[in-house]
């Protein structure tokens, strides 16, 4: 394995929801390498999303350290976190989070306008196979298409890491497989380190490594000797 992209040391997150105290992450240690595809598996509330959010600079840990390459994310100001997200991170969310008032093309352009070295929005959409539908609004696209727009939006700035939270969670299996295909294609072509959260155990087979989460900790790590192609998946 080459240089780690992410290094976590005793990463901990607790927060208060309503009147309940939640330990979302409990002293997690972790390293993720360049170009790696990592799948995070585990039940709801096991800490996957919290880890992803902290890696993406959307949230801060309560204690512990998290490095992106040699950048310590833990102490960054809001402004620096924003810059980090803008320059290095692409997000894919379960519910796509497209801006409903913008077309597919414009949703991608939303990112390319503020990125340092973006690809053209049309190219990003072509990468996800949506060049034909780039002037449609989200409401005119199917769920799978919307998710591919979200992926195009995420990769258009050529991020170092692509963080995907349940990217297939709202999709049927056929569409879900197409989306995984797109993610793996991007990983192959651009070498983007990819972290995927899922409930779907089948998806683990496409990963280099699988981290199993329970109660805010990594309970088990599984390394796949050979990644399978998305087309070989069923669920």
């Amino acid at each position, binding site marked *: 394995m080459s240089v780690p992209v992410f290094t976590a040391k005793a990463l901990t997150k607790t927060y208060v929801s309503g009147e309940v105290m939640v330990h979302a992450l409990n002293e997690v240690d972790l390293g993720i390498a360049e170009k790696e595809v990592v799948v995070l598996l585990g039940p709801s509330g096991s800490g996957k999303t919290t880890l992803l*959010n902290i890696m993406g600079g959307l949230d801060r840990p309560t204690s512990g350290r998290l490095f992106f390459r040699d950048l310590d994310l833990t102490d960054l100001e809001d402004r620096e976190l924003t810059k980090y997200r803008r320059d290095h991170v692409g997000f894919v969310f379960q519910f796509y989070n497209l801006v409903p008032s913008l077309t597919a093309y414009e949703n991608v352009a939303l990112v390319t306008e503020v990125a340092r070295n973006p690809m053209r929005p049309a190219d990003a959409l072509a990468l996800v196979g949506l060049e034909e539908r780039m002037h449609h609004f989200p409401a005119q696209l199917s769920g799978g298409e919307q998710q591919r727009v979200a992926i195009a939006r995420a990769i258009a700035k050529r991020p170092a890491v692509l963080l995907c939270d349940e990217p297939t969670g709202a999709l049927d299996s056929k569409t879900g497989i197409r989306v995984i295909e797109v993610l793996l294609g991007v990983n192959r072509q651009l070498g983007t380190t990819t972290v995927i959260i899922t409930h779907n155990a089948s998806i683990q087979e496409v990963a280099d490594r699988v981290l199993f989460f329970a109660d805010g900790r990594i309970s088990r790590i599984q390394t796949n000797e050979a990644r399978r192609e998305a087309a070989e998946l069923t669920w």
Partner: protein
Amino acid sequence: MKVLDIKLFRDVRRLWAQVLAVALVVGGGVATLVLAAGSHRSLEETRTAYYERYGFADVFAQVKRAPKALADRIGEIPGVAAVDTRIAKLALLDIPGFSAPASAQFVSLPDNGEQHLNRLYIRSGRLPEPGRSEEVVVNEPFARAHGFSEGARFSAILNGRKRELVIVGTALSPEFVYTVGPGDLMPDDRRYAIVWMSEKALAGVYDLDGAFSAVAVKLQPGASEREVVLRLDALLDAYGGQAAHGRKDQTSHAWLDHELDMLNNMSRTLPPIFLLVAAFLVNLTLTRLVALEREQIGLLKALGYSDGSIVLHYFKFVAFIVVIGIVLGGVAGTWLGLRVTALFGDFFHFPFLVFAKAPDLYLTAGALSAAAAAIGAFRALREVVKLPPAVAMQPPAPPVYRRLLPARIQLDRIVSQPTLMMIRNIARHPVRAAFTTLGMALATAILVVSLFTRDSMEHLIDVTYFLADRQDASIGFAEKRIANVVEQVNRLPGVLAAEPFREVPVRIRHGSIERRITISGRPAGADLRRIIDIDLRPVVLPETGLAISGMLAHILGVSPGETVELDLLEGARRTVTMPVVATVEDYFGIRGMMDIEALRKLMREAPVVNSVNLSLDGNRAEDFYAAVKSMPTVGGVALQRVSLANFRKTVALLVTTMASIYTGLAAVIAFGVVYNNARISLSERARELASLRVLGFTRGEVLRILLLELAILTAIAQPPGWLMGYGLAWVMKTNLAGELMRVRLVVEHSTYVVATSVVVLAAIASAAVIRERIDKLDLVAVLKTRD
């Protein structure tokens, strides 16, 4: 164009109804300011231009008879720029086919050379030929009221003799913008005329060859009016001069001033209230509107947009709304302002109108609205932007609801679940509920303050025409008459009762403050014209001492029991001190009242009268009119019923028109507020309401949950709204009170009912729109996305 800006325009389009509703609120505030201040400024500038171009004089005086040579000596008074001497006389008219008595102010025109001051603006025809005693120019409103054009004839009783006159022209004059006949309160163009005649002709009639009876003086810039008045009085004293006075006591100017003052005060009182209310409401609305964007803000942050660029984006959104509002308000306000200016210009018979441009008003109104909106947006953004994006993208954590009452009291046994939801929702957001209530209360309040003038005017009419001045007519004499003229009047056909009136001009002084007023002497037990106190009870005047208008007491800072100084401006011209024994509730002018016998003793004169108040037999009015026209000593006759009709007509223009416009704008604001409130509540609770639908609630039930809250808050808002409305009305009444006219603060129940009805109608209309929205609520979409 940047993608964020595309988003902006699409958002504006998506939310067009709300954008428009907020813009209307902004526009309502802006329009009131632009309209009121703009029209006042236009009329003010019109008047200034009129006065300047036609040489309106600064100081005026009347004498019995003074030689024309005196004019040179008047011109030598330091500070005097120009002098015009003339003959001015009041006389009765006899107009063919018009039975009611009419009167006219006759004014001489120089036969050689031009008028220096108070120059005529000839509207049609020409000036009279010098020496032609039958040729006259009349004021245009009088000619129009009778349909007279050049060549028309009417008669006048000049110096006791009836003469036939022929109209050769019509004119306007800066001196007679507002023409009020003797003894009258309101202008009556049919019954009061200004008639200009050749000086030679008028001098011949009144035996004033080489003499004058009135003088007008123009001051040099910076000259002291008081100084000139004193010197002029000294000069004219020997010729039977009555105290000279400045523009302030010139009837036309004073009334014009009063009307413009009223307009100005309205524009200083209502628009700021409207603008502030609008600003507050815009602030509230935008806070909630932006707060709804929480998830999108979180997303933009996740995508790497900086806080600054997100804040800028939403500021643009808000700015867009405000700009629409300012444009709408500016256009509406300007249009209304031009209409109001034209309406008033027509009422005053201004020969031309100057429309003042007012960029500063747009700026003021715009800046205030924009600032309020920006602060509103900022409040919401500050909350959202400081959240980590991961949190912002999720819906807010379920707010902590609490039991309202101890657990053993089962509230849900008493009220239904939807009602419980509504109550908890209000209790959970007490600040928001309070602000919403305050917003609706303010909507009610500005309606009340727009509507109350009508009530106060009705009260004024009741007191003035039905409690105090109950005479049917009053006859004013050109010169004071010995008291037995009352017997003579009593014998006229149709006269049921007659009361004499003695009027003496005085300067009243308390400390350093002085005013020029008239003291009326009235007989003990006068029943036609009565004095009314603040509790609306008739006052019996004591045998000595002075009663004065409450307003005058306020101006002088004197209360009953204290003494004032009086300069008697007639007869022996003494200065005396006199106790004030009562203050009087009256709404027109400032004046003093005394027992007629006490006044006679004060003046050290034989019993004399200036006018007689009458009660008439309505069936014999025509006989009375005919008889009075043949009395050579009569200067004018005032008729109460006609006066009241004229008052209503004038008030309808000045007050009702303005009040209607303001009420309309207030209604627009009220609708904007209520609609936005309901609409945003719907957005904030869309998911919750859709969940209820999924659980099997009907549309009606869901609508009820949403609207119940609106209804409750609307209801709660009304009493404070009435209270605030009353408070604002008090502020406005106080600002409008002037020496010429004022009102008592009266707000009828019906006014509150109307104000509340408008707000309730706005709520119902909003509910109807919301209902459509609920019907279209996409259950699956709402539940699927986010969360």
